[in-house]
């Protein structure tokens, strides 16, 4: 079994002046050598914060973050040494003034690579991102997508042990994004590089990653953020609920108070056609919506997105789609049991 690159134990981070105790709080996370891990979550979920922690640009406020079996923050210059092994490509990469070749060679020069090897690696990295022969050009005037590719080449040229990428294909068109995904897969395969990347795109995460780590409001959640809803609870003592939109309730059992995030397992959601004259099911957690997207994750299962008052993602056996009259743009009823709602991120309600 491959060794561990990262081991996070009760790591938490708090931004100055941010509300609440911690912006990111994780019980545990391990990342193995050569693993490709996707961080999925909505804006503000903590993906970038986690990447910055993994890149040793932020120091945990609490807990322990081991890298290759050591805690770099406990050693003098340990964080700087770890940064040489774990390279982060930020969401909006910055290119230094000068030529593209200067930029791609930047990290190699810092590491005092011989001139000939620096040139060879820089050229190879530019070739990987399909910018062969662009080395002599100035970085001024590059489009966002081109700048993203130069920054990716700059990171790839280092052949780092760990490559951390914050939404690496965000500025690229779909075709180029797919080609860059192939580059990342190759890097992982050929060099044994551990890759951790953040994305909003569940499909990209499924395509690229060995494992997916879902985040919401700075906490780990078990499922995709599309089924995550936050709000302040109300309760009748027997059940509790939040209203992500006025009058739209997600109900769960027990008495819970405070601000919570409700997560609904996509496989716990049942879809039925809204047509056919049958009486709609009664009880809590019944929603009406329209199928806005369908994609198959494998031969047996389809991911169905239903857009109504709220947007849900459900996994449905492919065989049930036709039998249930579920197709794109059709109106459907969506139900799930209160007990299938997972409540996370529970915090005491603010007083006053």
């Amino acid at each position, binding site marked *: 079994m491959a060794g561990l690159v990262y081991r996070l134990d009760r790591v938490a981070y708090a931004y100055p002046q941010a509300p609440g105790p911690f912006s990111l709080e994780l019980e545990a996370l391990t990342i193995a050598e050569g693993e490709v891990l996707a961080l999925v979550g909505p804006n503000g979920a903590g993906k970038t914060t986690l990447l910055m922690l993994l890149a040793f640009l932020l120091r945990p406020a609490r807990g322990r973050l081991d890298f290759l079996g050591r805690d770099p923050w406990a050693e003098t*210059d340990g964080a*700087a040494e770890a940064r040489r092994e774990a390279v982060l490509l930020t969401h909006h990469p*910055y290119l*230094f003034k*000068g030529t593209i070749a200067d930029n791609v060679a930047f990290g190699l020069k*810092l590491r005092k690579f011989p001139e000939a090897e620096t040139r060879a690696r820089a050229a190879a990295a530019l070739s990987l991102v399909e910018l062969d022969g662009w080395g002599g050009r*100035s970085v*001024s005037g590059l489009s966002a997508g081109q700048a993203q590719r130069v920054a990716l080449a700059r*990171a790839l040229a280092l052949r780092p042990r760990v490559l951390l990428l914050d939404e690496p294909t965000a500025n690229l068109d779909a075709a180029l994004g797919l080609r860059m995904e192939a580059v990342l897969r190759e890097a992982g395969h050929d060099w044994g590089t551990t890759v951790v990347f953040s994305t909003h795109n569940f499909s990209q995460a499924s395509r690229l990653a060995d494992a997916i780590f879902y985040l919401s409001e700075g906490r780990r959640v078990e499922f995709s953020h599309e089924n995550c809803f936050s709000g302040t609870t109300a309760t009748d003592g027997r059940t509790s609920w939040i209203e992500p939109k006025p009058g739209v309730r997600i109900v769960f059992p027990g008495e819970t108070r405070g601000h919570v995030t409700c997560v609904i397992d996509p496989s716990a959601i049942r879809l039925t056609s809204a047509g056919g004259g049958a009486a709609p099911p009664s009880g809590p957690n019944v929603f009406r919506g329209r199928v806005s997207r369908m994609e198959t994750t494998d031969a047996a299962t389809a991911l169905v997105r239903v857009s109504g008052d709220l947007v849900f993602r459900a996994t449905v056996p492919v065989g049930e789609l036709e039998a249930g009259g579920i197709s794109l743009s059709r109106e459907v009823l969506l139900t799930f049991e209160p007990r299938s709602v997972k409540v996370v991120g529970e915090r005491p309600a603010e007083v006053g």
Partner: protein
Amino acid sequence: MIARELALAVWVSLKTSGLAAVIASALAVPAALFLAGREFRGKKLILAVNQTWMAAPTVVIGLLFYSLLSRNGPLGGLGLLYTQAAMTVGQIFLILPLITGFSYTALRQVDRRARLTALTLGATGRQAGWIVLREARFPLLVAVLAGFARAVSEVGIAMMLGGNIRYATRNITTSIALETAKGEFRNGVVLGVLLLVLTLGINYLVQAGLRGRDGGA
């Protein structure tokens, strides 16, 4: 005015002001880097004092250092009054806030991602600081040259701390003052043109620096 005297005056101007610009830059640029990269209590006060100090008249600075360096002053024992060293010290004090202010502005305009990017690619904190300076190299060059131009063209400090001693502390600006006082306007005008050529040369360097920045960005 003989050629040797003229050449010496030019040399004294370039030497004292050049040295003042180098020393003041060595102090001002790190200070500006520190100020630009951190937020702390009292920073606004420091910037306000620096800005006020920029407007200090040269004769006031000359008077201050004269009182310090004169025989009865607290630093009189150093024997610096009426030397080129005294002129340089006074000019450092004159241009320090100017270079600090310009450098601070230049460094604040560097994209904050520059330092972060350098760190992500394996730079140490010190190397990342150098990268930020490199990204601002042309505006920083402008700051240093502006400081030099200010020092080379001032007359109050040179006169009060140098004493306008022939073949020793007489520079271009004190020569102009002397020639004008003697009624030798022609010499004064020639020296004035010389100073103008020097200043234009500095401006040319600044412009070349700016062109380089635009071209290389």
